[in-house]
């Protein structure tokens, strides 16, 4: 393309960059700065403490546990709705009567406020009168009083399921978009050559959807890292820290310990981790 096009390109990104700088970049840089201070929430006086915040955070067992929990949560709460959303999208793409309605109805989950979702899943997995315990009792498994949210081993499962339920529609919507952008001609041609479903999936559908799939996964991971509502309301990070995530830890550090410096430190570590991740990702994209 011609040289003048370059300026058109710049002009088109300008609004995005302007909003980004005002809303994200300035507060972000400010936070990194704060991570080297002992600034508390309330007073405007603070002094520089160097790397002290970082040292403290890395030595804290709470942080390490939260990091581990976050990795588990992000992995499963991204993988489950991704696979489920893909299968559901393929199913609804069979174009049977009512598929459109079902697709719309699926989106309801995603529109329901996070607090309501948390309570819904708390009811479902309630110890004394939850439907899951009732069901298990009726088919003869367990005594019907298993404490799902009160046990360190199972609380995370409920949190992941609730999040999967909330986000599956989103994955479905994105993957449907990808599915529908695949060219039919190519599939027809492959069929002529006698390709099986599996071959079509592997050779045409997945490569065709790859950009959308990658984007969906990346955004899903980042979204889950940010996610806060469900672990906060459903389990309050417990029991015994079993569902404390980096997002809830940051929130607690800022809003219940009122230590800005330390909260900003966790935030910075978090951004660095993501930075490494996106660096590797963009390296890969560049290679492709």
């Amino acid at each position, binding site marked *: 393309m011609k040289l003048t096009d370059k300026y058109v390109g710049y002009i088109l990104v300008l609004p995005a960059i302007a909003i980004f700088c005002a809303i994200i970049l300035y507060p972000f840089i400010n936070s990194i700065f704060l991570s080297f201070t002992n600034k508390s929430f309330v007073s405007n006086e603070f002094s520089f403490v160097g790397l002290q915040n970082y040292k403290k955070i890395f030595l804290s067992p709470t942080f390490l546990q939260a990091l581990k929990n976050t990795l588990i949560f992000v992995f499963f709460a991204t993988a489950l709705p991704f696979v489920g959303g893909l299968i559901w999208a393929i199913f609804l793409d069979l174009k049977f009567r009512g598929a459109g309605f079902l697709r*719309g*109805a699926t989106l309801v989950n995603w529109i329901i406020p996070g607090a309501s979702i948390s309570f819904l899943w708390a009811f479902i997995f309630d110890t004394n009168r939850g439907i899951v315990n009732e069901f298990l009792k009726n088919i003869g498994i367990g005594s019907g009083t298993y404490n799902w949210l009160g046990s360190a081993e199972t609380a995370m499962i409920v949190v992941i399921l609730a999040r999967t339920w909330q986000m599956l529609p989103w994955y479905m919507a994105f993957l449907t978009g990808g599915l529908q952008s695949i060219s039919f001609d190519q599939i027809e041609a492959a069929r002529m050559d006698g390709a099986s479903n599996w071959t079509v999936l592997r050779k045409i559908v997945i490569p065709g959807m790859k950009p959308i799939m990658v984007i969906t996964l990346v955004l899903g991971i980042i979204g889950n890292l940010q996610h806060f509502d469900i672990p906060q309301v459903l389990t309050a990070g417990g029991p015994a820290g079993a569902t404390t995530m980096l997002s809830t830890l940051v929130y607690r550090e800022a809003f219940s310990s009122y230590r800005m410096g330390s909260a900003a430190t966790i935030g910075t570590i978090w951004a660095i981790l*993501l930075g490494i991740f996106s660096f590797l990702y963009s390296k890969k994209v560049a290679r492709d």
Partner: protein
Amino acid sequence: MFEKSRGFKVFITIFAIVIGIFIFFPLFWMINTALKSPSKTYTVDLFFSSFTIDNFKNVLFDRQILTYLRNSLFVSFTSSFLSTIVSMFAGFSFSKFRYRGRASLMSLIMMAQAFPQAILLLTLYTMMQKLRLDGSYISLMLSYIAFVLPVGTWTLKAYFDQLPDSLIESAKVDGAGWFRIIFQIMFPLAVPGVISTAIYSFVWSWNDLLYSLTLITEDAKRTLAPGLVMKYMGEFNNNWAEMMAASIVVSIPVTIIFILLQKYFISGLTAGAVKE
């Protein structure tokens, strides 16, 4: 797309049933809870044992909730509209232009979601106050647009990437300006991506609690997520049954809009396929 062989049928049926139950049973349970009297909230009973529509009636005749709903619709629509436009421009630029700093700008935008939002809020709140924007929807919408940018830009870039450059070249030969190229040639072909972005952005604003709670204090301007929490999760009492009813009621108009949009979603696609 797939041949309906026996193996495929068995596979898709089993998984469709499992996923279908997983999606719709909790939804049914939510409606079930909302249809019972509050004292039965915690039971496994089905609603016909103590059927009541009081919860729904209370919500529908509650002017406050309707105000919250209107505010949320307004904020979500507007920020969805604006962020889709901004993301579309940016995505198009990243996809079809080559200039210095493009790659770094792209990763920079991705960073918008890479830092805990709770921390950003603290600086943002003071900043909005200095600009006298606190308490206005502008501050809220600007934040929503910023947080949706990475999703929007990257999704739309992926869609534009799939469109051949030759389309632009031939349009330029025909004497079309950039504005026309974007809105009349590229936009229709990227409709699925545009709709996905718009929906994502809509739901982001719709579900946000923390920012809305902090930046908007006037009751008349409050949006749904904080409004519902405030109304139903109190110091002494949580009215869960009515909260469930309210959550269902408010999601109905949005679902209808989404179902309506689907038609455009699909027609946009077929149009694209024909042109290709």
